[in-house]
């Protein structure tokens, strides 16, 4: 048995060696044709400086509405981590409170994106149900914002994360209009589009996004979508899942457990 395995191993090794040899022989010719700048395109697997290979990942987030306590620590941490202006008009993530009353009235609010907390004034109306909903860029599989960007300054990376190239953004704000979730804003100082990046600079270093790191109740789960052992896949297996505005066919990669019909 063992012998067998080592034999096939050797075969595979030999084959891959031959492959490498062929690539080595052909590469200069191929590059001659394609021009040296196309190097990355031919070798599809490419790395960032710290060895992170985008191709090997596919990121997503799970949010359990039943666990969110509306403390707003995620919104605070996000602003700290990503230098988002402190004013209440710019958010990469925020938390909404839904209060649904027995008379059919629905109140939604998010004072300063939840950073100032939620005031607790009493009414005579009887509450039917109430809950908090954290909102964030959905990192859609079919992102409308990427579709409309005229210059290619926002894009979906190979790891599924939707990023902005702020040096290339012209500030036309078409992406802000196209986002159905209100997840984008124009940075008041750089005058370029801004949005959640899943804390890209953290996840390439194996750290959690800041909002997930500080969530005290594990209402947010971050992880890989195509690895069986990831906490996110477990989250998707254990819960009934909903996404926001499914009818728009954006295919969000932020998944909500216990999502209410009133959440839009």
């Amino acid at each position: 048995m063992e012998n067998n395995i080592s034999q096939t191993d050797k075969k595979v090794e030999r084959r891959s060696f031959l492959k490498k040899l062929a690539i080595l022989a052909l590469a200069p010719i191929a590059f001659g044709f394609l021009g040296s700048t196309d190097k990355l395109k031919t070798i599809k697997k490419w790395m960032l400086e710290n060895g992170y290979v985008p191709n090997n990942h596919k990121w997503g987030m799970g949010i359990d509405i039943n666990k969110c306590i509306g403390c707003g620590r995620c919104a605070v941490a996000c602003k700290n981590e990503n230098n988002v202006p402190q004013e209440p008009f710019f958010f990469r993530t925020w938390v909404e409170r839904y209060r649904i009353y027995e008379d059919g009235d629905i109140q939604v609010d998010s004072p300063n994106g939840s950073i100032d907390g939620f005031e607790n004034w009493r009414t005579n109306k009887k509450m039917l149900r109430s809950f908090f909903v954290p909102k964030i860029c959905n990192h859609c599989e079919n992102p409308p914002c990427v579709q409309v960007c005229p210059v290619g300054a926002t894009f979906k990376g190979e790891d599924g994360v939707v990023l902005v190239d702020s040096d290339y953004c012209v500030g036309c704000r078409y992406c802000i209009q196209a986002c159905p979730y209100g997840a984008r804003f124009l940075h008041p100082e750089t005058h370029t589009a801004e949005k959640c990046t899943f804390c890209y600079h953290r996840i390439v270093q194996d750290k959690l996004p800041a909002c997930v790191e500080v969530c005290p109740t594990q209402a947010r789960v971050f992880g890989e979508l195509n690895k069986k052992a990831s906490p996110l896949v477990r989250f998707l297996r254990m819960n009934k899942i909903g996404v926001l505005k499914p009818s728009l066919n954006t295919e969000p990669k932020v998944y909500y457990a216990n999502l209410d019909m009133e959440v839009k």
Partner: protein
Amino acid sequence: MEELIQHLTPILKEIWGYIFPNEIELHWGILIVLYPYLTGLVAGAFILASLVKVFNVKELQPTYRLAMLTAMSFLIVAPLPLLAHLGHPEKAYEILITPNSASAMAMFGFVYAWYLMAVLCLEIWFEYRRDIILWSQKETGIKKWIHKIVSLFSKDISEKAIHFDKKWVKIITIIGIPSAFLLHGYVGFIFGSVKANPWWSSVLMPIVFLFSAIVSGIAMVLVLYMIITPIRGKQLDILCLDKLASYLFYVMIIDFSLEALDFVQRVYESEESIKILAYLVSNKLFISLVVIQLFMGMLIPLTMIALIKIFKSPPDLKKMVYFISAILVQVGIFSTRWNIVIGGQLFSKSFRGLTVYKITFFGLEGFFSAVVIFCLPFIILYILTKILPPWEEVRNP
């Protein structure tokens, strides 16, 4: 930044219902209202001009060259509001060198360049070439040189060459009609294709844009013709005016039907967004949509022109009614653009609240900048009429 915060903070108090926190800042302001208005005038004026060449509407001959130059001067200014509203105008060239083929907006540069160079410039050049050469022969000094350069130093005014010019004016006009449709239908598509916004997202949007564009273009040429001719001390051609008013009337009927169809469809389908849109129309947009766009800009001019046509009226009354109608139509169409662009951003994509638009006065994106941009085409038109006079009497026999 300070300014922006000072501008946004009072808006917080005027929000009705719930809007996403990033939606408090309204992103497309008066400049983006101006942009479809200006391109609309271009497309409209061109379609009017092509009536003369392609459909042989002889009565409109006096306005043909004027319409072409109007289209030209508005087209030159059309990209300015876009440029001024960009966060980084200095990077605007990126849209030409790395256009994203999936983006509706990315094609702007090419549609614009095609229309400016392949249609308008070419047609004007072929139309004027013989006259320019003849003018430059008689003139001296700087004017002579300007005309020489404009004519690309061409000299051939043989019978054959003139015939060639005429043939090509016609061909370009025929290409130009779909191009004008493309130019403005395309602007409609920029809005109509935003699926996230139910106020914009509609297949009818490009067509509604197009017909309202033709309406505004005809009305603008009518106004310009009625102002310029008396200033030049000439007589208004009442046959031409009648024809212009008739076309204005027909196109307005089509425009009105399309908008009515859009309205009926929305109300009948009653999708998720209908409640907030109904609230938007009956509150924030009531004056600009129902009063200005519908009554002032559409129904009143329609009735006035219809009455004039039914009851034979004296020319002076006719002229007055045409002039007033055309001005009202201009206001109405500007209001249409306002209602689409600003209206589409007043309600939240959560469908739970409305915000307000507070116009700023100073700065690149402010009111004054919009006024300047709106006045520019008229200045350019004045200069163009000096270089390429569109008047019948200066044409060489």
